[in-house]
């Protein structure tokens, strides 16, 4: 019995010395190895008299536990010490620049197209597209703009053949024609895309973007048109209230036709859309002309509806404070970086249209 207490004290003392990890492991194996001191003591168990055996076992176990705990603690302390020692040499200047990363941008026109699509998606419009190259029929004639119509003068058209049969579409309205010819009413679509006019100065670009809207169904009237546009404008500019007025105008493919103005004010040279006392023309619209519906084989005794068209670039300029239309198409790296959007910034209704 006294043997094992002696052993215990001896090793407790040894463990107090200045030891490294190897020394401690050495002590550990001296005690608990296959033929370690403690292990050997356990082997003696058989030779202890029956009456002493219980106490011997109990004492030996408690000494074993005590030493084991001491050794484990010692090992832990040494390890932590070693880590702490190492840490002192592992200081880096975290203010040094991080590893390089790439950050791309989405063009404002694309972002605004996505915003527009998201808004109209909520009220059941789907997105349709048409070719940039159109024939004269779809771009003009089918839209109630015959060859001798003065309204054709307003569209400075790029032609692709001498007969003037093929051209770059001057508006997105031919998508109406294609959509209605290729399926049956009801129709509820928007058609964003590139449009072209041979016009180039500070405020006109030979290529720009429009979005067309078309809703044909039973009993669709101008009230629905007004409601739809009112909803869109409010959502797009992310304002609660908007002053809006419909002004009679003329487009060959709609009747009655209207231009839509929205209220704005100037604050520190910036346009604030909403309730100011000035008017800004923003889009053209109207009820689809019966001649157009006839051209695309829609039964006008059953179906009627509205169409609208607006400039996407202009909407982007107004919403994001961009002054120069030409800059949209000039690929200036600085401009793209400044006005571009993060690719992860996908417009959606539940997350909010813009950040």
């Amino acid at each position, binding site marked *: 019995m006294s043997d094992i207490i002696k052993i215990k004290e001896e090793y407790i003392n040894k463990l107090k010395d200045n030891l490294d990890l190897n020394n401690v492991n050495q002590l550990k194996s001296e005690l608990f190895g296959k033929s370690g001191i403690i292990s050997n003591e356990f082997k003696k168990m058989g030779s202890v008299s029956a009456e002493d055996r219980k106490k011997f076992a109990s004492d030996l176990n408690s000494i074993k536990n005590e030493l084991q705990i001491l050794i484990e603690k010692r090992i832990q302390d040494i390890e932590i010490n070693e880590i702490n020692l190492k840490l002192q040499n592992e200081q880096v200047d975290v203010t040094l620049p991080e590893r390089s990363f790439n950050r791309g941008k989405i063009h404002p026109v694309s972002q605004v197209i996505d915003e527009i699509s998201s808004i109209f998606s909520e009220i059941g419009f789907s997105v349709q597209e048409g*070719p940039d190259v*159109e024939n004269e029929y779809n771009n003009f004639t089918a839209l109630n703009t015959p060859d001798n119509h003065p309204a054709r003068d307003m569209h400075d058209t790029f032609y*692709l053949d001498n007969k003037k049969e093929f051209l770059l579409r001057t508006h997105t309205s031919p998508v109406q024609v294609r959509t209605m010819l290729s399926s049956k009413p009801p129709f509820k679509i928007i058609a964003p895309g590139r449009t072209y006019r*041979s016009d180039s100065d500070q405020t006109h670009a030979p290529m720009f973007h429009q979005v067309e809207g078309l809703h044909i169904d039973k009993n669709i009237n101008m009230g629905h048109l007004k409601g739809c546009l009112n909803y869109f404008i409010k959502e797009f500019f992310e304002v609660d209230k908007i002053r809006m007025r419909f002004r009679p*105008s003329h487009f060959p493919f709609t009747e009655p036709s209207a231009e839509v103005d929205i209220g704005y004010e100037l604050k520190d040279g910036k346009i604030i859309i909403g309730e100011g006392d000035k008017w800004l023309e923003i889009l053209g619209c109207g009820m689809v002309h019966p001649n157009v519906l006839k051209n695309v084989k829609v039964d006008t005794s059953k179906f009627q509806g509205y169409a609208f068209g607006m400039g996407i670039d202009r909407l982007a300029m107004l919403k994001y404070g961009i002054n120069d239309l030409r800059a949209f198409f000039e*690929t200036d*790296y600085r401009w793209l970086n400044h006005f571009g959007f993060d690719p992860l910034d996908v417009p959606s209704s539940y997350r909010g249209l813009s950040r």
Partner: protein
Amino acid sequence: MKFTINWLKEHLDTKYNEEKIINKLTNIGLEVESFESQSSEKDEFVIAKILNAEQHPNADRLRVCNVDIGREEIVKVVCGAPNAKKDLITVYAPPGAVIPKNQMKLSISKIRGVTSYGMLCSESELKLSDESEGITELSSKKYNNQIGKKFFKNNSPKTIDLSITPNRADCLGVRGVARDLAAAGAGKLKKFDDSKIKFKGSQKIKVKITKEKNQGCSVFGSCLIKGIKNTESPKWLKDKILSLGQKPISAIVDVTNYIMFDLNRPLHAYDADKIKEGIVVRNSKKGESFEALDNKKYTLKDNMCVISDKSGVLGLGGIIGGTRSGTELDTKNILLESAYFNPRSIRKTSKLLNIDTDAKFRFERGIDPNSIEEGLFKAARLIQKICGGEISRADVQKIETFKKIQIKFPITFFENITGFKVVEKEIIKILNDLGFVVKKKNNDLSLTVPSWRPDILLPIDIVEEIARIKGFDQIKTELPEKVRDRPTLNKQQKLFHFLQRSVASKGYYETVTWSFTDSKINKLFKEDMNEVEIINPISSNLNVLRSSIFSNLIIYLKKNLDRGFKDISLFEIGPIFNGNKPGQQKIVLAAIRSGKVSRHNWIEKERFVDVFDAKRDAIQSLVEAGFDQNKLYINDKAPSYYHPGKSGSIYLNKNENNPVVYFGEIHPNILKKIDVKTEALVCIEIYLDNIKETSKKLKDQKNQYQYSDYQKSERDFAFVIDKNFKVQDLINIISEVDKNLIRSVKVFDVYEGENIPSDKKSIALNVTIQSSEKTLKDEDLEKINQLIISTVESKSGAKIRS
């Protein structure tokens, strides 16, 4: 369309003030572009303040003044006046202004070496007095807060400028505008002056309209006024012409112009003595020519409507008259013409000859065919009043009779379209006021359209008339229902959006460039595609539709390199064209990346961008867009504008015919031709149309979820193989040795050089082996190792490197 409020009031009895009239016009669809005085030459003279006056460095008598003219920038003016001193308020004339005294036009000039922008004016120079000693002195008390304002009051009356839509020919005359305003409740349309004229004799010049195909004239009315004395117009008439922004010429010309703008009734006056043996209105013959009143000589084509006499063409009917029969101040007898020309014919002729006149503008939109005599007599009466003379009876030649249009209008149709109701009584009143003859039949209105409204043909046109007069503010706002019964985007559109944002997220800036480009650069990228020429390009370097997006991207890359950028990543997604017919276009995403990766980086080694950057961006984007990377197949074919040794194609799987991606470096010869100086340039093109729509959703394309918890083993191999042997094929050979066990094959080294024959390369691969059924034993692994080596060696001719 321009007119003054007073002119309008000659036709309209109204209590409305200017502002109310302006608002009403806009509300009924006659958009007011502007309402201001015609600008005057004297507008440029502004009140200015001298901020300081310093001695001119090279001239004793001159001073250099800094002058506040009410704008952001201060102007510098050299002035010789002794009274030019600090704080003096005076009158400033900018470069371009004309000095009233001597009609001298100012320009920016250097005076003894100092540049002077404009001039400070004396009273004599402004014709205010004879005082020429010094510059004008204005009282600071009165003018101090008016710096920058116009010095001369513009007394000319304000002019309304309307932007008239092409359908509203009738509102190209003041009376038409007045009629619309009256219908909209702004007042009452005044009665027309139809006092009797004392005619003297008949119109003796014979007029004939030939009956032939494509005759552009259907009615030709005329009268003679004999014994007149042409003269300058009286002040009231001159003022009217000036308010239109035009210059008065003579009483006869001014009267015909006045009637055109007053009644929308173009007229033409001939010197009757210059007409040879009567007038024939006929189609022109190719090659005929005449000198027009714009002093240009026009050579005509076949079938243009001309007014002619025995000597030939006098003028183009409804477009422009000729000098040969023009009136002058000594003209004694005139023939006044009031005719109807077919809009289509007018439009065709004026387009061919490129002539635009006020008359042409009106005839092509449609003139009231019943206004022939009304216009003729109003003009004749005025000419007689101003110039004297005797008026003959009118002669009206007609080859066609105008039929009035009848429309049956169901009253309920209005509410069907507009969504709001207007009571029947009010509808009838509005239509009456607009000039319709209205008869009620059961629930319909039977309408006769006034002859001045050629735009009204259908019931829907009647809806618009009532709605605009009533006001579009009456339209209700029906809130849209938030219902979606079909998907917003189709699969191709989703792919478009996904790839767009996926590529952007790799660090590329999206740009949008023209769909057209410079054919010289396009040719470098067009391969065997047809080039689509634009017949009327805006400039010679934007003369074809693009066959590739690279032409524009590289043009703009160059501009950005010139701005000092080196590491540029750009992409565009949009159409390219291979024909001039609808549908001969494809959607392509093209991206370029130039310069270096990790330029000036303390932790990463900087390097040039290379073909494997491009390949990574392309493949990662395809994978993100939902395509299986393991199925992608790559070969080294690419269009000729790519570097032949550093480019390739990606196919969605080995069996596809068309690649979805090309990637690589641009051919150095092309960069040389376009003179692009960049350290490195790599590119990607993704052909969206070559990506076939899959019928299954992504979730349905996935295999069942399976995994193995048994131990993985990794083994490394190095093979020496022919230089030309593609690593992709080597990987495939290994993968197919045992698809159940071989989980991945990674290339971790490619080596050529010492210890390797010159026509060989060494490829080092790491293969992961795992069973889904058991933990593999050493002998299993050894077996598969041997199988890999033997299969590779037999299939590829490679040798394992020991």
